[in-house]
Each structure stands twice: as structure tokens, then as C-alpha cells.
């Protein structure tokens, strides 16, 4: 197993005083460059409540609010809660050694969630190739839409690896999930229609992206990185 050294994280007294959830919300919001107003609008709440969540360590938002905030911030409730909530609020980066814990299949699937950004890797005669793609999870498979002839489309018919990770810079913890299997192009019209309806996001903008590629989730492994 490789050792993972967590990224360096600047921590301030102000940060340490906040509750973990509030800090994660603020951190994620900062990563996305969103104002409180914008985030609150996306999550269907008001900026003053968001401010309260971010600044009061005693704030205990309900699951409904967290789900909406996680959606607005393109993350998961689990991530906002900090994965396994075994650290008390205000505990920052520990000086300990990173520890790897294998995740169960269910945990892996939960972390893939419904959609996100992952990395698709495959072997070519000149070496491995890796490209980021937007994905959705539909009917037990990772699916993504691509342009015919583009690298992700070249994955069809090949053995590929698909990886999703999240490194929590607030607490220097993280996880990664790896799906391995044969990618296949989805061509059957009903199946394509189903993906068009059920996949979380369309292409961001422009261009025709009309090839669907699917990777079965049969071989899925993952682990979390925890600093003790």
C-alpha cells in the first residue's frame, strides 16, 4: 500500500473555532467561488441561515438542508459531514500518519453518488491515457456522454479504470473509489433514451456529444484515507 501524505492545509484560529460542517460548507463554497447569496439561492435557503451554519459551531442543520446544500455545492452529505463523523468539532489536521481503510461495496457506491467528475484511464500502445469526464450513475453503471472519436469514446470495448476521489482539504482526509471493467458503447435506442432521461447532467454547452459509454459497476473497490 502506498503512503499518502495529506496536503498541507493552512488553518487559522477562525477556522478552528467553526464547526466541521460549517467549515466544510464554507470551504466548498470558496472552492466553487460562490457567494453566500448564490449558494443560498441554489439550495433554496436564505443567506443569513447559511452564514449561521458557517459561523456557529453549535449549528446542527437537518438532513434536508444538508442534502440541498450538498447538491448546491456539487458534493455529498457524507462529504459535508466529513465522512465518518468520529472527530469532534474543531479538530484540525492531526500530525499523525495517514491510514488507509478499505471501503465496502455499498460505501463505494454511496461515494460515487449519482453524478460527478471522475477520471477515465485506459492502456494504449504508447502508454496509459487518463482523461477527466463528467459521469452519472444509471441502473448500476457509470455512464458518460462523449463525442464520437474523442478519447472517452475510444474506451468503448476496452478494459478501463474509472476513478473518483475526494480529498478533504479541511481535515486532510479523503477517499477514492476505483471501478474496473470493460467499457461499452450504448447504442440500443431504448437504452439511449433511458440514459438521456435519467443521466444527471447533459453536456455543459456546445458541441454534439452523442455517444454514450457505460462501465458496469461489478468490480468496484475503494478506500478512505484517515489521519490518526
Amino acid at each position, binding site marked *: *500500500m*502506498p*503512503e*499518502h*501524505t*495529506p*496536503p*498541507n492545509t493552512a488553518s487559522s484560529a477562525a477556522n478552528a473555532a467553526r464547526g466541521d460542517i460549517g467549515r466544510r460548507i464554507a470551504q466548498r463554497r470558496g*472552492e*466553487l*467561488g*460562490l457567494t453566500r447569496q448564490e449558494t443560498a439561492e441554489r439550495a433554496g435557503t436564505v443567506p443569513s441561515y447559511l452564514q449561521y451554519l458557517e459561523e456557529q459551531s453549535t449549528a446542527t442543520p437537518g438532513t434536508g438542508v444538508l442534502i440541498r446544500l450538498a447538491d448546491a*455545492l*456539487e458534493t455529498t452529505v457524507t462529504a459535508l459531514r466529513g465522512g465518518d463523523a468520529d472527530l469532534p468539532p474543531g479538530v484540525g489536521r492531526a500530525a499523525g500518519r495517514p491510514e488507509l481503510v478499505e471501503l465496502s461495496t455499498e460505501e463505494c457506491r454511496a461515494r460515487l453518488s449519482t453524478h*460527478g*467528475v471522475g*477520471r477515465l*484511464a*485506459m*492502456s*494504449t500502445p*504508447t*502508454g*496509459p*491515457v*487518463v*482523461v*477527466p*469526464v*463528467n459521469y452519472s450513475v444509471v441502473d448500476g453503471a457509470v455512464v*458518460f*456522454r*462523449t*463525442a464520437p*472519436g*474523442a*478519447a*472517452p469514446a*475510444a474506451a468503448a470495448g476496452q*478494459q*478501463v*479504470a*474509472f*476513478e473518483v*476521489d475526494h*480529498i478533504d*482539504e479541511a481535515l486532510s482526509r*479523503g477517499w*477514492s473509489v*476505483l471501478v*474496473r471493467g470493460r467499457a461499452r458503447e450504448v447504442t440500443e435506442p431504448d437504452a439511449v433514451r433511458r440514459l438521456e432521461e435519467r443521466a444527471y*447532467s447533459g*453536456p*455543459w*454547452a*456546445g*458541441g454534439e*456529444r452523442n455517444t454514450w459509454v457505460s462501465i458496469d459497476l461489478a468490480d468496484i473497490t475503494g478506500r478512505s484515507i484517515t489521519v490518526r
Partner: protein
Amino acid sequence: MHPNDGFRELDRQERLRLLAGAPVGRIVHTRHALPAVLPVDFALDGDSAVLLRTAADSELSRAVDGAVVAFEADELDAVAHSGWSVVITGHATVVTDTAEHRRLSLTGPHSWVAAPGEVFVRIEAELVTGRELVGGRTIYGVGISS
């Protein structure tokens, strides 16, 4: 290269600058005849190589020693529809030279001092590719070639 894939080619300097600022990268290698991807902490050795640290007896060190691997770092923002991805491709070797090991231990970031039983893996930056997502275009159509 697909001209309409919404990506702008970065020059080598930009690629290395972005890479240097990334908190984590991913090594792509072959494991049991299948590609595998693993997030790893890393450091750059100037502009010539990527350095990883791993246990001497790890599956990773055995799998990559002498092989061509890819190393990728990115920062992708699905909300803002922006980001970049940089990939280094080259031969990976476990550093066995004592003097070189000492040099890396001394010059690398503090946290990079290898514990007993750990080795450095060096990935030569034989090919450095990098793209920036521009104009809110999709990231689906990234081309293989640079």
C-alpha cells in the same frame, strides 16, 4: 486533437505551474493486466520528473518500476464549468541510488522525508500534456493526443 472539444492547450510552463500547485495527483498504471488509478501525494523534481513516496514492498512500487505510467492532476469545477487537467507520461523507476535517495529526502518538502522502509518513485516527464477548459464547454471530448 479535436478542435471543438472546448479545451485550450496549455504551454509547458503553464502545465508545470498548475501541476506544482495541485494538492494531490493520480498515478495510472497497470495492475493485474488492467489499468488502475490511485490518488497520491507528490512533488516535482524541477521540471524533469514527478516524485512519489511509497512503501518499498508496496504493490504500487512493484507494479510501476520500469513501466510507462501516466500521472494526472486536475482541478475541475462542474459548477463553474472550468478547470484544467495536466498529464505527465513517462518511465517510472524506484530510486535505488543511495545518494539520490538522500538528495530527494533533503530537497523534497518536509513531509517527504521517507520513513524507514519507504522508497521514492520517480516518473520521468517524457511527455507533458495539459489543457484548460475554456468557454464553459463540455469536458467530454478530450482528445488522446496532445
